């Protein structure tokens, strides 16, 4: 225990991996503690004949269903959306679909442009160099010239959009609505440690080919080659501070269940928008009676989850919609920006989803009560499967103090650490936005040729995007960290995950998590040298 590391990272997912990869290029001793293990890409579900069934067991996105030794329970009884995650080196990116857009310029200035929530303390222009820097590690496929963004250059070729994508693209064109090939964290040709994608399909069960830029493929090989120490099977319970309330390390349980301490000059929490506030809230002491960083009672609050609706259209012809990278075909940013006539502020994106697989599709029909039994059973499947186009509506969630993560008073994990409890309700603005989005998705599906549409939302098992629970800001009274991710109340403690998001945008957050994490790492490097 005598060793003092320069930088200690907690969590080897999207944010932690980016910090590790960045700092590994400098003369800094870095260690990372991760509660999961390194995924074995040779043993992922897509290599097995019964690959689909793993979605309902050890590769289920819900940790309460998965119940692996590295998982901790999460009480989501008071939320219509269940938290989804994956605890491993690479974190939830192991199971993410790879949809990888940036936030838009206005996403950082919602108060200035729309008069709601708060502005971020940084702008798109300040973050743009770090989006670029991240492409050193992450394979980003897409197409230049997208009118939804300032110029983005040097992308890998887009993932093929497939028959379903083309059908929908024509529908969007007939409405004169924006669409564009999806930004995808997928190597469409050889890139670094990645193999080129061969369109296996179920990216959200892990990519056995190593074509998807999950952090175990994109960032960790670089960090490990540069001698970053990665210790798996270690679950952190709390941050340790000295008498000046400066972070000095963490307390954790090793694989055998033995409680240990580790010391560092700088500590970085990167455990996602639920795991990070959990550790902060559990770090109670005389100096921090409500937990670290929580003197203003904001830790855990303002949880944003990107409520998601699915809208489906059934077509007469076969669209081969079950084939190809599940989350990456085309996306529309037509309704991202506010329009006063709509009755809500901010907006949503529409993302074409491929799949689901046969088992997942028929399960979904059963859950929707549209699966017929008896003599009509086969026809009820035949007329839908691979003839259905799917659009997801990703709604920009607004921060609300009552939506929060707390410590559950009863539920504990296998090490006896209090489990997180999520309390969440959809705000009125979110509900109106989602209803509007569902109608627009139905319109474009019909314009594309669908003869029948159906919709449901919010979808419960979609709480992947965990944002806002330790938000950044210039004012210590109204935020948890400064604009670099350093906790106002606790010097040398940084946060490098989506907890620091001020608002949520209407796009997937991983590209922004990693750009912010690289920016935070650059700040730590500066601080270390000073």
């Amino acid at each position, binding site marked *: 225990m005598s060793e003092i590391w320069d930088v200690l990272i907690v969590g080897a997912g999207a944010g932690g991996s980016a910090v590790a990869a960045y700092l590994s290029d400098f003369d800094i001793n870095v260690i990372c503690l991760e509660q999961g293990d390194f995924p074995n890409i040779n043993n992922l579900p897509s290599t097995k004949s019964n690959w689909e069934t793993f979605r309902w067991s050890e590769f289920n996105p819900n940790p309460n269903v998965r119940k692996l030794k590295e998982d901790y329970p999460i009480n989501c009884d008071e939320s219509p959306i269940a938290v989804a995650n994956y605890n491993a080196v690479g974190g939830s990116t192991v199971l993410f679909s790879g949809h990888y857009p940036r936030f838009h310029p206005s996403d950082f200035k919602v108060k200035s442009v729309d008069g709601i929530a708060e502005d971020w303390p940084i702008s798109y222009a300040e973050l743009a160099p770090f989006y670029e820097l991240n492409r050193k590690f992450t394979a980003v496929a897409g197409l230049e010239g997208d009118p939804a963004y300032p110029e983005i250059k040097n992308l890998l070729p887009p993932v093929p*959009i497939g028959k379903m994508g083309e059908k929908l693209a024509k529908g969007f064109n007939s409405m004169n609505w924006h669409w564009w090939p999806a930004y995808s964290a997928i190597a469409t040709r050889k890139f670094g440690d990645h193999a080129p994608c061969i369109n296996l399909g179920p990216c959200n069960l892990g990519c056995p080919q190593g074509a998807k830029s999950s952090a175990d493929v994109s960032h960790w090989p670089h960090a490990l080659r540069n001698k970053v120490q990665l210790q798996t099977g270690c679950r952190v319970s709390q941050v340790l501070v000295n008498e000046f309330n400066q972070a000095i390390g963490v307390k954790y349980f090793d694989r055998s269940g033995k409680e240990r301490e580790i010391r560092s000059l700088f500590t970085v929490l990167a455990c996602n928008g639920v795991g990070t506030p959990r550790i902060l809230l559990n770090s109670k002491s005389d100096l921090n009676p409500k937990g670290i960083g929580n003197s203003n009672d904001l830790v855990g609050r303002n949880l944003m989850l990107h409520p998601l609706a699915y809208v489906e259209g059934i077509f007469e012809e076969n669209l081969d919609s079950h084939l190809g990278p599940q989350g990456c075909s085309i996306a529309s940013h037509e309704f991202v920006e506010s329009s006063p006539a709509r009755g809500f502020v901010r907006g949503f994106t529409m993302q074409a989803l491929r799949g689901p697989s046969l088992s997942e599709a028929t399960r979904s029909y059963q859950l929707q009560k549209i699966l017929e039994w008896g003599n009509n059973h086969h026809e009820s499947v035949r007329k839908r499967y691979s003839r259905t186009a799917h659009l997801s509506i990703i709604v920009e969630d607004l921060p609300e103090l009552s939506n929060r993560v707390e410590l559950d008073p009863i539920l504990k994990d296998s090490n006896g650490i209090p489990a997180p409890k999520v309390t969440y309700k959809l705000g009125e603005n979110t509900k109106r936005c989602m209803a509007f989005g569902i109608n627009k998705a139905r319109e474009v599906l019909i314009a594309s040729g669908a003869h029948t549409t159906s919709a449901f939302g919010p979808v419960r098992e979609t709480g992947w995007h965990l944002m806002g629970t330790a938000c950044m800001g210039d004012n210590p009274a109204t935020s948890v960290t400064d604009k670099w991710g350093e906790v106002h109340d606790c010097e040398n403690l940084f946060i490098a995950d989506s907890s620091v998001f001020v608002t949520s945008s209407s796009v997937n957050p991983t590209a922004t998590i990693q750009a912010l994490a690289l920016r935070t790492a650059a700040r730590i490097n500066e601080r270390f040298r000073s």
Partner: protein
Amino acid sequence: MGGYEKPANHQHLAAIELLVESLIPFDSETGLPSAEFMDFSKFLDAKGELEEYLLEFGKLIEKLELKLGVKFSQISVDLFIYDKDLKKGLTNILGMRLVDYYYQIPQVRAYYAQNIPAPFPQGNTLLALDYELLEGVHSRGPIYRKV
């Protein structure tokens, strides 16, 4: 009622066998097979769920006896199958697992053109982007707000 502490007897099994086949019957149009109870029960057994499901099935039988006022052994299996409430109850209990089992059958998956045995390492060939489709989108110019 009693008598059903044990999950099922052979009469119950005969009934559930017929029910499983009636929920997903043979399809003469495509040749898709019916759901076979023996294979389905093996599937449940492998998951350690067979006893639980048969227990639920036994509870349904208790309901049927209450409803009709006779012992199960005195009822025609056909009546059970065509009792809408009970069939719905059984579907609710068995439906998801029946789907899980049936749509893993190689013959069924082959019909729906799913990769067998697994997506890796074959992959898929997909329709590529027709860039002309984007001309109208691009010509609109920027749609993001400059802040």
